[in-house]
């Protein structure tokens, strides 16, 4: 069933079980392989555990059983800075610092590379500032560099969050319900920009979504989470190309 072929798997989840409380399983025996460069969308009704799955895949939660490997490295063995060089994470509410301006928020993507002494004074290296400006430009919001985040609209905040993750320069980006609150045209424009950035930077995206049209536009593959298990995603009556879902390896 595996279709990863000779290309290296960006992310490999192997028989992952997860529960917050004893044996109240949110994720049951989930296995998946995501090839590098293939954007994956995970769908499913709210409250089903999509966020939990994404946080486990991003290495933010430790599975009770099983293992998640990122480019061959088990996430639990990576130090936080090593993990941050491989995986970027954008939560549903984006996790931007509202009192800081757009550029400062983007620069936070570089914190994993910087020593405390200078960064704590707010002194970022010139090349990082240039890269941050370029990332904002790429997301089409270069003119709002110095605007505080609480003054920005929903769509502008999404662009800032993506720009921050681009500056982090991870190889995989995990984004929760991205562009969900935006109107269709705007969401579509932002997702197009993300695809362009992803190709340029060779990033593999994993996103949860609940709108089928957008999922079809963005995802190379769509998976659905049901009762804690992954099943191939459906759009209308059409079964999309799915990634390998291996019950056992």
């Amino acid at each position, binding site marked *: 069933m595996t279709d990863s072929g000779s290309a290296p798997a960006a992310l490999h989840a192997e028989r992952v079980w997860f529960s917050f409380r004893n044996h109240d399983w949110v994720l049951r025996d989930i296995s998946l392989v995501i090839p590098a460069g293939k954007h994956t969308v995970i769908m499913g009704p709210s409250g089903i555990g999509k966020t939990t799955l994404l946080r486990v895949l*991003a290495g*933010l939660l430790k599975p009770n059983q099983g293992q998640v490997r990122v480019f061959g490295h088990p996430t639990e063995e990576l130090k*936080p*800075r090593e*993990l*941050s*060089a491989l*995986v*970027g*994470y*954008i*939560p*549903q*509410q*984006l*996790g*931007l*610092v*509202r*009192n*800081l301006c757009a550029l*400062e928020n983007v620069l*936070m*993507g*570089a*914190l*994993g*590379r*910087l020593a*405390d002494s200078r*960064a*704590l004074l*707010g002194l970022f290296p010139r090349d990082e500032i240039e890269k941050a400006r370029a990332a904002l430009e790429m997301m089409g919001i270069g003119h709002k560099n110095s605007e505080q985040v*609480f*003054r920005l609209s929903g769509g502008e905040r999404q662009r800032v969050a993506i720009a*921050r993750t681009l500056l*982090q320069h991870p190889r995989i980006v995990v984004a929760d319900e991205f562009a969900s609150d935006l109107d269709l045209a705007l969401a579509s424009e932002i997702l197009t920009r993300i695809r362009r950035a992803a190709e340029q930077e060779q990033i593999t995206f994993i996103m949860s979504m609940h709108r089928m049209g957008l999922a079809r536009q963005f995802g190379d593959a769509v998976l659905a989470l049901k009762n804690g298990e992954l099943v191939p995603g459906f759009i209308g009556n059409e079964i999309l190309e799915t990634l390998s879902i291996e019950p056992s390896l």
Partner: protein
Amino acid sequence: MRSPFVLPVITTFFLLAVLAHLGFFDWARLSRGFRNLGILGADMVPPDLGILPVASAALWETVEMSFAGTLLGFLASLPLSILGTRRLFSTWVSSLARFIAAGIRTIPVLLWAIVFVILVGLGPLAGTLGIAAYTVGYLAKIYADLFEGTDPEIMEAVQSTGASKLQLVRFVVIPEAANAVLAQVLFMLEYNIRASSILGFVGAGGLGFVIQIYLQSLDYRRLATVLLLVLVIVLLMDGISAWLRNRFLLSAHTA
């Protein structure tokens, strides 16, 4: 069984009982008090403005003490409150930091002033240090609670960029709480201006010394001048902090 009237009735009963115990229903005593208020008021007018130079110097000392004390206390409260934030440090560390803050807070500002008069001698330095000490105890607790309330999603998002603990404090915890941090410092400054006008009672400098002398010598016309000065400075501080709030805080709530 649970009638909506039970709690109000019980509360009213207890309030009346406590007031009675404190002598609130001793009408003869209260009416005598009102008569005395009239006499005291009459003795205060017209205020004796001749002491303005002396009183102004003391007032300036009070203002200096409150500003310096508040600022010192604020600076010292930041590291203590960060150590007291349970989400950033282990239970052991945060509990110790919170215990220290609680210990400092237990002692009222007037007692702190007495302690520092004993340690560094009479004068405004003792008052400044007393104010600083009390400010640390109060702000460290408020700030630690505030920092603990930082949105966990923002913490996680920035943590996942590989940020260190110190970087998290600098770029997430403090900016997210900035509005409330400023509001609390302003509150503390207003409080300290009022508090420091009585620290002179224990020899810790400022206006309190002058107030005490006029009170003891029953010199109410001069006392009236001093009280008017306190009123002016408190109103002035209210104005300044209202301006600061408008300038820095309101904008954040229009989002």
